[in-house]
């Protein structure tokens, strides 16, 4: 496709197989999103999809294209792009800017190129494209109908932009939808991150001390799965409410410098930068494994580890003072995406259904500039369709609540 910049077009067969596997296991996108997107709302629209560029993202982009949109795709992180998927998308006629392992400068250029596509609708992750559009192409901002945002970090960035008077179009916080953050952030990240850690290290978590830094939905999910697999948890959290939740939930809650010395595995899950600072590296035990499940590649201050030795792909060993050796997974990038295939397909079926319906709302609505929630009825619709696809029937118990209301004369 004219304008695309990818690594190797010949890789398309593997990417195509991956996309087709996703299509087989995405019943909500196939039923609900495809029907909604196909109502003509996207005919001729210019849609940019900037999310981790792997097969699930590719399938979402394909659905927009099937609905008549002109689509550009770029990766939201240079370490998570799958080159075979990029090639398959190009073969499907979609413009792609992305390649695995490129420099941050090249990735930045990819985003600027995606902004130059003049998108009207943006599916964003971390507000990466929104930010570049505002910074680099203010001439194209008036064309934007709206953006839907995938992550906690991105929603925070969009709210900051709005508060600063710099967000001139509406955004829907897809991340804040129930079918997204209650499921994806918690179960999706927890499930895929513990599997990635076990696969990369070749060891089970049973019997290990695992330190989770950050107890938002991602941290909760990590803790639940790791505990289930036999790990002992220590939670580091700065907010007293989630810290209390972790404590009542039976986890040890500790300051970073108290939790780290015992930890066999340290996982960051804050969405912030420097969650595991170099200043605590002297406290790490010999053999500790470090991984990041948050948003930023910079959650672990990797530069402070010095020169590492690559043991195998996505596994590096560093020698610290006193001969202690620590292992860093996926170079400090998102361990589940850079080190494995990312969230399970069924999780992204829900998350991208949220995105699809948010985009449909933007394309058809007249929301003012600002950050808006996904309408609750759309969230429920996604959940209802998902439950139907797995054969779960809901009890129609509204009558009980109506009786309570009647009792009070409401």
């Amino acid at each position: 496709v004219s304008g695309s910049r990818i690594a190797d077009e010949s890789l398309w067969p593997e990417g195509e197989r991956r996309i087709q596997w996703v299509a087989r296991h995405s019943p909500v996108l196939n039923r609900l999103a495809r029907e909604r997107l196909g109502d003509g709302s996207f005919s001729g629209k210019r849609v940019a999809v900037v999310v981790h560029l792997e097969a699930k993202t590719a399938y979402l982009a394909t659905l927009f294209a099937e609905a008549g949109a002109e689509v550009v795709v770029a990766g939201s992180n240079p370490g998570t792009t799958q080159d075979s998927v990029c090639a398959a998308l190009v073969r499907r006629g979609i413009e792609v800017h992305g390649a695995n392992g490129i420099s941050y400068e090249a990735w930045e250029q990819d985003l600027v190129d995606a902004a130059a596509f003049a998108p009207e609708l943006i599916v964003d992750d971390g507000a990466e494209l929104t930010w570049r559009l505002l910074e680099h192409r203010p001439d194209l901002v008036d064309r934007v109908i709206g953006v839907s945002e995938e992550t906690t970090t991105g929603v925070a960035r969009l709210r900051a932009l709005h508060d600063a008077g710099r967000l001139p179009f509406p955004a829907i916080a897809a991340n804040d939808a129930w079918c997204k953050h209650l499921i994806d952030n918690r179960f999706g990240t927890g499930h895929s991150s513990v599997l990635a850690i076990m696969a990369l290290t070749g060891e089970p978590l049973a019997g290990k001390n695992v330190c989770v830094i950050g107890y938002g939905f991602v941290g909760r999910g990590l803790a639940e799965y790791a505990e289930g697999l036999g790990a002992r948890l220590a939670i580091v959290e700065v907010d007293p409410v989630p810290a209390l939740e972790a404590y009542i939930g039976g986890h040890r809650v500790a300051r970073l410098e108290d939790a780290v010395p015992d930890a066999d595995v340290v996982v960051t899950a804050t969405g912030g930068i420097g969650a595991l600072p170099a200043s605590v590296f002297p406290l790490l035990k010999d053999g500790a494994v470090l991984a990041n499940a948050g948003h930023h590649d910079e959650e672990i201050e990797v530069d402070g580890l010095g020169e590492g030795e690559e043991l195998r792909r996505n596994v590096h060993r560093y020698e610290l003072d006193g001969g202690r050796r620590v292992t860093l997974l996926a170079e400090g990038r998102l361990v589940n995406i850079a080190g494995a295939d990312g969230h399970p397909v069924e999780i992204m079926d829900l998350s991208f259904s949220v995105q699809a319906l948010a985009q449909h709302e933007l394309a058809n609505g007249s929301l003012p500039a600002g950050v808006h929630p996904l309408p609750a009825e759309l969230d429920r619709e996604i959940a209802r369709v998902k439950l139907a696809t797995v054969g779960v029937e809901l009890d129609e118990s509204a009558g009980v609540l109506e009786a309570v209301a009647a009792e009070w004369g409401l």
Partner: protein
Amino acid sequence: VSYRAVTDLLDRTNLLASGKVFAIVGWDEEAARTARALRARVVVADGGDAARALGYAALPLAEALADAELVLARDVDPALLREGAVVGGGVRLDGDEVREGVFEHVRPDGTSVFAVETSPL
């Protein structure tokens, strides 16, 4: 290390265990515990009292496989699997490779099941 049969199955397929019926054919405590930790609803085929005592549903083979989306077995008759079931643990079924290490086996009625290369049970 039979936990690896579970994790390989999920790593190879990028599928979710949570919420799914996960059948394990024959009693393997480590595999059952791992699948349960990943929030699957574990049923053990021919697991007997040992499985039942730890809170797992222990069912006859055909009954255990009837609803299972994910299966671990050393060997299995594909006719007993539900449509779309994904099976690992040592099973080999003829078919095209649809993802690295994942083979689609088309049954005589035209429906498919998938065999995954994993560590053996």
